[in-house]
């Protein structure tokens, strides 16, 4: 255990950077502050890699699994006799993998931000919050118990709110971050109640289930309820239907932040949560897990359809993220046992996809950021033909698109294939559905790709100084992260023998490609790409426009994201405000006041002597007071004795 002492630095370094930059950031030049944060992040990344290397090269236990290491588990608060809130670090295959994912993407985003955010106001603060976010996310994945996870879970929400809302001066961005904050808080309500129930019945929050196996078994029937409630929290963070609506709006924030938060880290917290609780789900609540899987499948389809018609490139990526997370949830949801050879494949597939998706989706966002940086717009119509101007971005973006579409040998193919295999094992219908969604994914990603880099050349607009700007490639500090992520996307699929390290029961599992599934999915993906090419590559968009005309209703519905936002708007504004808040206010103003005014009038007459006092209302306050007492007393006596006249 002692050999992992250094892992504590993974949390402490970002925290130190946050405090340092938060307190003294403004004393430094912006670039210096940025470099401090970046160097700190690089050190954190090195430590994370070191930990991972050590962990995965250590000897396996007798049953072929890696030992779960808990180098730190500090009793933070003894609450009650048995229950304690702990803070610590837990290392097991998935948390170590998440360490790698988070630090890698975060480092890339740090470097990229040096270029992308250059000259923005509040540069130092931005990096301080970036460190805070990284710290919270790392704290979440290494949590030793559910409570610590919840704590960092909320902290992740706060820091992402700060990162977008406090840095950005755009009102829409702040409104969006507020929306994200409140929607996810709402979902977290479920999480918290689930935690309370779980703690109450099991008496421990620890993730070491084997220690508390008796208590868990004794709590049997409430475990599904607790887990179901916790999953709601997961659905909120991971933007599953019906909580998905915050994610597209959150795209108003700066693009590197989206790459970090909305592609690779925070949004997969829900998937990670389910993976963490996986043994409990399999043991006590498989039905809950399957329901989550169905919701995931629906979300994947729903988001993919919407992604096909969005015109803002970041929103396309946002819906794509929702859809891909749906894939991960489906993979977990179709698991039926912890044996990877019999129904437990999905666990590995899900984690694998999480891993590869983090890389290529971060790459896509950062690439989109470079494009936005070049053309100063998020809209597809302002782009086109950019391949000539931005060669590096074009090339890396293409790799990411191929990866997400599931074309070998890029990483996405391998992980998606495992998901499809797992799904086919569970139910062929769902397998075909997911294959179809994979095809849709290929279509909308290449629609995006062709619209940005091919199609008609974009109209060159005159800048402020009068002469025409041609879009130019981003500076090296931005393209280098792109190239690194692209390289990772090319290799992680087959270089890393993923199943050897992570599988549902911990033992080594050799990934093998199921030829039938693989060929089907490749064919479907190629068809999707082909359709996109025919429709969007050329300068004219006859077919696309024709389709939009012919399927007008569906198209418009999809553009409007199936009116989900409007429905929420309707519920909150029309129903809650109009039907509850306003009537309460009206009731208060007219009925209550009038009633008590009447009573007060009686009191008035009786107390004519103090009428000279200018306060018109204090008498009615007293009357309410009195009636309050009488009502409470009547109710209490009625409840206790059933009758009044015993008095």
């Amino acid at each position: 255990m002692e050999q992992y002492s250094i892992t504590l630095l993974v949390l402490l370094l970002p925290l130190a950077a946050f405090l340092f930059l938060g307190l003294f950031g403004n004393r430094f030049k912006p670039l210096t502050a940025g470099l401090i944060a970046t160097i700190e992040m690089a050190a954190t990344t090195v430590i994370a890699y070191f930990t991972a290397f050590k962990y995965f090269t250590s000897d396996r236990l007798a049953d072929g699994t890696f030992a779960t290491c808990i180098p730190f588990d500090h009793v933070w608060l003894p609450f009650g006799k048995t229950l304690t809130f702990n803070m610590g670090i837990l290392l097991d295959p998935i948390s170590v993998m998440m360490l790698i994912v988070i630090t890698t993407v975060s480092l890339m985003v740090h470097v990229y931000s040096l270029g992308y955010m250059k000259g923005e106001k509040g540069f130092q603060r931005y990096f301080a919050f970036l460190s805070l976010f990284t710290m919270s996310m790392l704290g979440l994945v290494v949590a030793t118990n559910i409570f610590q996870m919840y704590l960092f879970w909320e902290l992740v929400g706060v820091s992402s709110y700060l990162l977008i809302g406090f840095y950005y001066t755009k009102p829409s961005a702040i409104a969006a971050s507020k929306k994200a904050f409140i929607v996810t808080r709402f979902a977290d309500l479920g999480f918290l109640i689930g935690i309370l129930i779980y703690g109450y019945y099991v008496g421990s929050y620890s993730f070491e289930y084997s220690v508390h196996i008796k208590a868990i078994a004794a709590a049997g029937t409430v475990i599904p309820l607790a887990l179901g409630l916790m999953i709601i929290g997961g659905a909120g963070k991971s933007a599953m239907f019906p909580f998905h609506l915050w994610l597209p709006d959150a795209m108003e924030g700066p693009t590197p932040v989206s790459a970090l938060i909305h592609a690779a880290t925070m949004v997969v917290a829900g998937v990670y949560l389910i993976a963490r609780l996986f043994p409990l789900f399999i043991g006590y609540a498989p039905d809950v897990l399957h329901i989550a899987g169905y919701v995931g499948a629906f979300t994947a389809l729903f988001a993919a359809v919407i992604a096909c018609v969005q015109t803002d490139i970041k929103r396309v990526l946002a819906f794509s993220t929702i859809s891909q997370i749906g894939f991960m949830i489906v993979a977990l949801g179709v698991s039926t046992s912890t044996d990877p050879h019999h129904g437990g494949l999905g666990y590995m597939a899900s984690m694998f996809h999480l891993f590869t998706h983090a890389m290529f989706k971060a790459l896509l966002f950062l690439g989109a950021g470079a494009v936005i940086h070049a053309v100063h717009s998020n809209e597809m119509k302002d782009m086109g033909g950019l391949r000539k101007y931005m060669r590096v971005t074009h090339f890396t973006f293409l790799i990411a698109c191929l990866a997400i579409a599931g074309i070998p040998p890029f990483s996405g193919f391998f992980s998606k294939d495992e998901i499809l295999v797992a799904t086919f094992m569970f139910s062929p219908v769902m397998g075909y559905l997911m294959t179809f969604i994979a095809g849709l994914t290929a279509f909308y990603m290449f629609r995006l790709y062709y619209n940005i880099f091919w199609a008609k050349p974009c109209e060159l607009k005159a800048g402020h100084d009068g002469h025409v700007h041609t879009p130019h490639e981003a500076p090296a500090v931005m393209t280098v992260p792109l190239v690194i992520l692209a390289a990772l996307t090319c290799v992680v699929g087959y270089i890393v023998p993923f199943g050897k390290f992570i599988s549902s029961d911990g033992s080594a599992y050799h990934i093998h490609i199921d030829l039938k599934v693989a060929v089907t999915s490749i064919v479907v993906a190629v068809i999707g790409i082909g359709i996109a090419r025919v429709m969007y590559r050329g300068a004219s968009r006859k077919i696309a426009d024709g389709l939009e005309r012919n399927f007008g209703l569906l198209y418009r519905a999809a553009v409007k994201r199936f009116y989900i936002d409007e429905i929420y708007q309707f519920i909150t504004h029309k129903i809650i405000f109009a039907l509850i808040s306003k009537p309460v206010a009206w009731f208060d103003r007219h009925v209550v006041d009038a009633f008590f005014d009447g009573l007060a009038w009686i009191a008035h007459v009786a107390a004519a002597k103090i009428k000279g006092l200018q306060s018109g209302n204090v008498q009615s306050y007293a009357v309410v007071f009195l009636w309050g007492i009488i009502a409470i007393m009547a109710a209490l006596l009625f409840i206790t004795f059933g009758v009044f006249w015993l008095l």
Partner: protein
Amino acid sequence: MNYSQILLMRPELSLIALIVFYLLYDLIAGEKGRKYFHLVVSLGLVAHIAYNLCPTGAVSISEGMYLSSPIIGIVKTILTFGTLIVVMQSDLWLKREDTVIRRGEFYVITLFTLLGMFYMVSSGHFLLFFIGLEMASVPMSCLVAFNKYNHESVEAAAKYVLSALFSSGLMMFGISFIYGLNGSLYFNDLLQTITASPAQIMALVFFTAGLGFKLSLVPFHLWTADVYEGAPTNVTGYLSVVSKGAVAFVTLTILLKVFVPLLGEWQQMMWWMIVASITIANLFAIRQKNIKRFFAFSSISQAGYIMLAAICATPVAMTSLVYYVIVYMVANLAVFGIISVVEQRSNGKVGISDYDGFYQTNPKLAFVMTIALFSLAGIPPFAGFFSKIFVFWAAFKAGFWVLVFIALLNTILSLYYYLLIVKAMYITPNDNPITHFKSDGYTRVSLVLCLIGVLVLGIVSSVFGILNAYSFGL
């Protein structure tokens, strides 16, 4: 009676010494000495806190009329700390032309109310309790009326006096019932004689209504918004935090010491009052335009959360309650400190819309305000999150699932309206924002203290642990 026993009332005696000293200081110190009055008062309170910091053992004077225990000592220290913060924040206000000559009165009256609260939390007899309560509330109305040339302040004081008298009368009615039915007012005796008979329940309801008035729980809350709005801002802060904290603590101790046989009735009654307080106050807070009124409703709903701990009547609940009070104190006093300094520096701006664009001109104050609001809304890693978790957990463990669920739903509603202020400060454009100003040294120190409290109290878990260790002794 052995009069040397009186010497055991250490916090009270040192406070009385301070009061006498300030009275004399006000008389004797000339124009020059008065300049340092504020410093002297602040340091005196710091000395008082230091002197009484170490919790004493259990004390019982004159057959249990006056009781003290470590947790009671801690509560007194917390109340003194809150008073210190309020006093510090009032420097700017007390330098105004109409208040500067009366500043000595302000200090002395404030300390008198504090003394009343001390006796209230230490009481082991209903009469001492009632005297303490009145001692805390009668001078309070003088404080509410302290801006005596201000129409609203005087009106608020009149409302406060009338409502307080009314509630005290009803409470006295309840106490007289208790005496009539049980033949004693000592808490120790009552525990054995109280039974769940209708008349006893009636006494409980009248008594609780009086407490509910002080805590401003629905339906006894109607005075709150008017009084909070009209009172001088610093006094509002004092009312909303220190006075409320003392009564909240007393509510739970009296419940545990006296009304245990009526626990079921108490819980049924509280259940509805908590739900009504939290929900109604939250719904009304959304509509408010005046920031002091806004925080009046916010404090009503916070009182509901405090009572969430009081409903379960367990030692852990006691810890959670005291902890909640501390955390609420630092966050709310940070808010009122800012409201006060803004009001003084901007010629009395107290509308929420006046805070539009506040961040552009006064980023640091806006930042402190935001953190305090986050804490009030219960967002980690700020202390408010932990205090909420603890009361929820205590209530949950006592079996109040539905209640916890309703309270949790309300936290989201409260997050919404607290963020409304954040939004006003950071986003809403304003052509004419509050201009940039430098806040005075006292306010700064007090805000830093509050900020440290908000940031540290939650993360340093030993605070809760220490409270928990003492509250078992009760």
